[in-house]
């Protein structure tokens, strides 16, 4: 079909970054950074363009699900997993976000990493990540999705451990991969169960089969519930939800662009994507939905609290990411999938921006990440400051900024949902307050007040345009990004929701209700949210800009709570003490040293030595003394005679005994 040149060759979109990665990885070591840049940025840019074209063709084709099988990858018995890609509204959003933001971040990285070693390595990894991420979002069946799923895990492992000379870095990378693996364990089992039940893992067929099934009752642990919970386990690993969130903060060991791309904008949202993708299954399993909502809400709050006291600028952002992801899951959990995806998109914009800006700050400070050693940067690096402020307002939910709309939609949906909605809402709101607090705390600490660093040591400087450009673009996006939903406030159509409607249609009670009846309520809730945001802002201002002393006094006054938060609730320590060390100890002492060496091998060698000992005994019957030998002959004679004359019932019966 010439009509859809790109759609028919959809594989071009992921392939381009792969090529870039391969070329850079194999040849880049000899090349100058410039060429590497061209390859990397060029390939991603091209794939972005292709994505745009594909989207155009998609609209052109009347927004009907496009699906194509390219080749069969695994086939055995009645199982088939193909290299099948598909394009629908959900995919459109994801693809555009991934390629677009990814491309911007590539450009940024070109400037940021300019003076780092292993330049080609970095970009090769980065492109590899793009490839896998695109596979993940374009896949038309769970197995291929799993390929991308594991692949992004791999590339995040590589990128986190990019500075492999630092033990902390390689540790973080390893941790990320293994924790993800724990999630994948559940994900695989989920796939197996789905295949066992429906005999296929292809989205189209699977959902077609699953659709007509009756939904399970709340509290019933049916196929759907188990499958969804298992899938969600994978999502938890990938999207850093409780209890598997521990890897994400450590992941900040990676270069900042990586944090921006992988650990803010794209990869970590894969979990949300999967849940949204399998919404048909989830809507059959209210129990699972509730679990998702609760976990999301809890994570959001929990991470936010930790974020309050962190001093490392990137760690603050990391915990904020975890918290925002919690929001997205909350949305999905209460059935507001489109809201979740919406927040996913806006979050991709402003969180990427935040990270990049933070990177620019760090860049300006010559690698310093501790906010207590910053301050008063506002005047020195205005661009960075401006863009970062925009992003902060977006995430804090200041009206008309992107974050405002998405967060508002989520909170509203939560408020609407039947079971435990109010509670979820309350925590969501509290989290919103905390969010705006710690974000503005970051702003004030970094850009206001007097400088807390030695002017002569670090000479602060604005970043080059290669870095500022993406900042500006993203800033614009995080401002206007939310206006899809703007009309909804004036009883107009919610473009974004309507766009995704073909997918989530009929599965979003909250949204359905939202349209008319409780419109006023929505406005009220929005107001409340804004209020919360402003309160957070105010407190932050009062504590960190008005009278800076107060913060420390506060910290001192509630020492235990403060230290607990500072040490992230000691979760890592708890895991180490409860899981890692016991496992190692058991493996070493019980399994290896005791069972293997002492037990089994000991028995084997014991048999050998025992036999030898017996042999030595036998040997000593050879006394060399003829008289003894004669006695042996006599013994033999007696034995034979005894057998012949005294053996119990010789002949047949005796034979039966041996048979």
């Amino acid at each position, binding site marked *: 079909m010439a009509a859809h040149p790109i759609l028919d060759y959809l594989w071009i979109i992921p392939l381009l970054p792969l090529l870039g990665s391969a070329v850079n990885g194999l040849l880049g070591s000899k090349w100058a950074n410039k060429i590497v840049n061209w390859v990397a940025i060029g390939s991603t840019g091209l794939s972005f363009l292709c994505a745009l074209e594909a989207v155009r063709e998609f609209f052109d084709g009347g927004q009907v699900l496009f699906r194509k099988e390219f*080749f*069969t*990858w*695994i*086939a*055995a*018995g*009645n*199982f088939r997993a193909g290299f099948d890609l598909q394009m629908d509204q959900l995919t459109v959003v994801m693809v555009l976000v991934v390629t677009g933001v990814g491309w911007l971040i590539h450009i940024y990285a070109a400037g940021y990493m300019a003076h780092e070693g292993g330049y080609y390595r970095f970009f090769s990894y980065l492109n590899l990540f793009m490839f896998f991420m695109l596979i993940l979002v374009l896949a038309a069946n769970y*197995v291929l999705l*799993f*390929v991308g799923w*594991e*692949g992004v895990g*791999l590339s995040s*492992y590589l990128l986190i*451990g990019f500075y*492999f*000379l630092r*033990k902390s870095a*390689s*540790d973080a990378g*390893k941790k990320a*991969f*293994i924790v993800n*693996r*724990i999630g*994948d*364990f559940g994900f*695989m*089992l989920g*796939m*197996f*169960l789905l*295949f*066992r*039940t*429906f*005999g296929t893992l292809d989205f189209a067929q699977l959902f077609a*089969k699953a659709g007509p099934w009756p939904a399970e009752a709340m509290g019933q*642990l*049916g*196929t*759907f*519930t*188990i499958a969804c*919970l298992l899938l969600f386990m994978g999502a938890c690993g990938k999207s850093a939800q409780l209890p598997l969130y521990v890897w994400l903060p450590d992941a900040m060991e990676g270069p900042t662009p990586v944090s921006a791309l992988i650990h803010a904008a794209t990869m970590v949202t894969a979990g949300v994507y999967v849940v949204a993708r399998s919404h048909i299954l989830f809507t059959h399993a209210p129990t699972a939905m509730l679990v998702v909502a609760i976990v999301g809400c809890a994570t959001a709050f929990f991470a936010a609290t930790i974020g309050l006291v962190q001093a490392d600028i990137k760690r603050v952002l990391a915990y904020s990411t975890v918290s925002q992801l919690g929001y997205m899951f909350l949305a999905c959990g209460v059935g507001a999938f489109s809201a979740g995806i919406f927040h996913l998109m806006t979050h991709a914009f402003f969180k990427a921006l935040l990270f990049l800006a933070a990177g620019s700050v760090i860049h300006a400070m010559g690698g310093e990440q501790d906010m207590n050693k910053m301050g008063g940067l506002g005047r020195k690096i205005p661009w960075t400051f401006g863009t970062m402020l925009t992003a902060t307002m977006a995430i804090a939910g200041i009206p008309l900024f992107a974050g405002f709309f998405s967060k508002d939609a989520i909170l509203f949906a939560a408020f609407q949902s039947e079971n435990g909605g109010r509670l979820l809402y309350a925590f969501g709101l509290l989290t919103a307050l905390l969010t705006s607090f710690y974000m503005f705390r970051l702003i004030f600490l970094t850009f206001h007040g007097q400088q807390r660093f030695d002017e002569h040591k670090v000479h602060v400087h604005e970043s080059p345009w290669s870095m500022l450009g993406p900042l500006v673009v993203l800033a614009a996006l995080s401002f206007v990004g939310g206006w899809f939903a703007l009309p909804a406030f004036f009883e107009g159509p919610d473009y974004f929701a309507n766009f995704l409607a073909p997918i989530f249609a009929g599965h979003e009670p909250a949204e359905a209700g939202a349209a008319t009846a409780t419109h006023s309520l929505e406005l009220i809730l929005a107001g409340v949210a804004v209020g919360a945001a402003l309160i957070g802002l105010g407190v932050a201002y009062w504590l960190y800009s008005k009278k800076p002393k107060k913060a420390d006094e506060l910290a001192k006054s509630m020492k235990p709570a403060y230290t607990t938060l500072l040490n992230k609730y000691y979760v890592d320590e708890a895991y180490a003490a409860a899981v890692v060390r016991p*496992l*190692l100890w*058991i*493996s*070493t002492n019980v*399994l*290896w040293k005791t*069972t*293997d060496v002492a037990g*089994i*091998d000991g028995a*084997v060698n014991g048999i*050998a030595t025992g036999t030898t000992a017996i042999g030595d005994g036998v040997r000593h019957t050879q006394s060399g003394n003829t008289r003894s030998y004669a006695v042996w002959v006599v013994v033999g004679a007696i034995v034979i005679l005894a057998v012949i004359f005294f053996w119990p019932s010789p002949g047949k019966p005796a034979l039966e005994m041996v048979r």
Partner: protein
Amino acid sequence: MLSGGHLLSVLIFFPAVGALALLLLRDDDHKYIRILALIVSVVEFLFSLLLLRDVPTAVPGYHLEELAKWINDPPINYHLGVDGISMFLVLLTTFLTPISILASWQSIGRRVKEFFVMLLMLEVGVVGVFLSLDLFLFFLFWEVMLIPMALLIGIWGHERRVYAAVKFVLYTMAGSILMLVGIIWLYNATGTFDLPAIQQRLASGGLVLVPGTEMVLFLAFFLAFAIKVPLFPLHTWLPDAHVEAPTAGSVMLAGVLLKMGTYGMIRFCLPLFPQASHRAAGWVAALAIIGIIYGALVAMVQPNLKKLVAYSSVSHLGFVVLGIFAFQNISMQGAVYQMLAHGISTGALFLLVGMLHDRRHTFEISEYGGLATPMPKLAAFFLFVALSSLGLPMLNGFVGEYLILLGTYQRHWGWASWAALGVILSACYLLWSYQRVFFGDIRHEENRTVPDASAREKGILVTMAVVTLWMGIGSIFITRRTDVAAQTVIDQVDPRRPYEAAAPNGTAPRAGTVPASRVKLITAERLGTR
């Protein structure tokens, strides 16, 4: 009966001819010895490629059969044949032999001639095992293979080589002698050593074994195979053998010899003793699962790199056994695929470990660290292989593991769930050891100057890497050929197929009825009682 020339005989005996030719060379012109050995093995590999052409893809039964009278009483025939499963195992063997010859190009300095002769004789034995359709012939090759391997370990091995070699032989013989008794007993029951004949009589119901007898026979065979695999409690010869063996030895051992055990299970245990296999399945699966987790955990804490890889083999082969005894087409093909994948990736791991040893003459992980700086290429290859071994999608390890677990899940969701833990653990031990070897700062000065991969090494590794990648993406090429064979075995082991009902177009969700809380309660013991 006889069709398609004598390709199989050629495949078996060509290396032997090559070995004889080697014997004619002078002891000291190592160059020509190496080259000749390489040529022989490569030609052998090319011959084996003909199998792909000559073996029809979707036709059940054995192909290219060769049948010749050998001994009149008892009637023992020289009966060869190949099917989808054995074909690829033969290919694996003939592929790994030149690789290991290349790998020992320089590391083998003394008694070079004997070394390559032994390697080729080993190939003879292994290929013979995979191709023989006569129980007696099978046993014969099975035993023939022992001595070259033992000598490879014992002469060119490391410090405790003698202990390892003797342990290897005695362990294996202990199993195989009982198998001989079993074979003879089976002969008494059937009056023939011919595998297809027995299978036909079993299929036609012309032969029915008493349950007790069948179980004893099954155990007689199974023990020999389980030792070879090795299955959990019988595995302790493996670490020693691997650690002490020279690189080539380890490659062949891990790559091919272990597969003989699993192959034997597929080819003999299941088809010949279906009922017994079913009765034993639970216990076997339990052992396999224990092996998977146990092997992984023990591997995780090994201070010795090579031992770590050895224990990882225990874990991986556990998957294979589990897949076989799930009696599912999917898992069976997965098992076959895992055999091949494990052969490639673990073989590559041993090659890499061997290369490290060539440079630093130690396997102790603590001796290394920060190697990524001096040798980035080797580090890259190592990571690649490690990833394939921990089952990263698009690499060969994933396909096998995934199919096994998927198929097993159809048979019994508990088994699959426990086994899947191995997926997590494999990531743990591989990445951890990789980090300790290649990442961080250099702690030992001598590591600062170690050379990166040489051209020869790069050649080997690239070959392995390409195969790994190809197997990860083009798995269909292999599964298309193993499908029928696997299905045949499934039919033989259980004509009625009680477990097949579970799979397609879900009527009633089976696992749905199982409360999720029990997922945690299921223990290996409970599995055993099923």
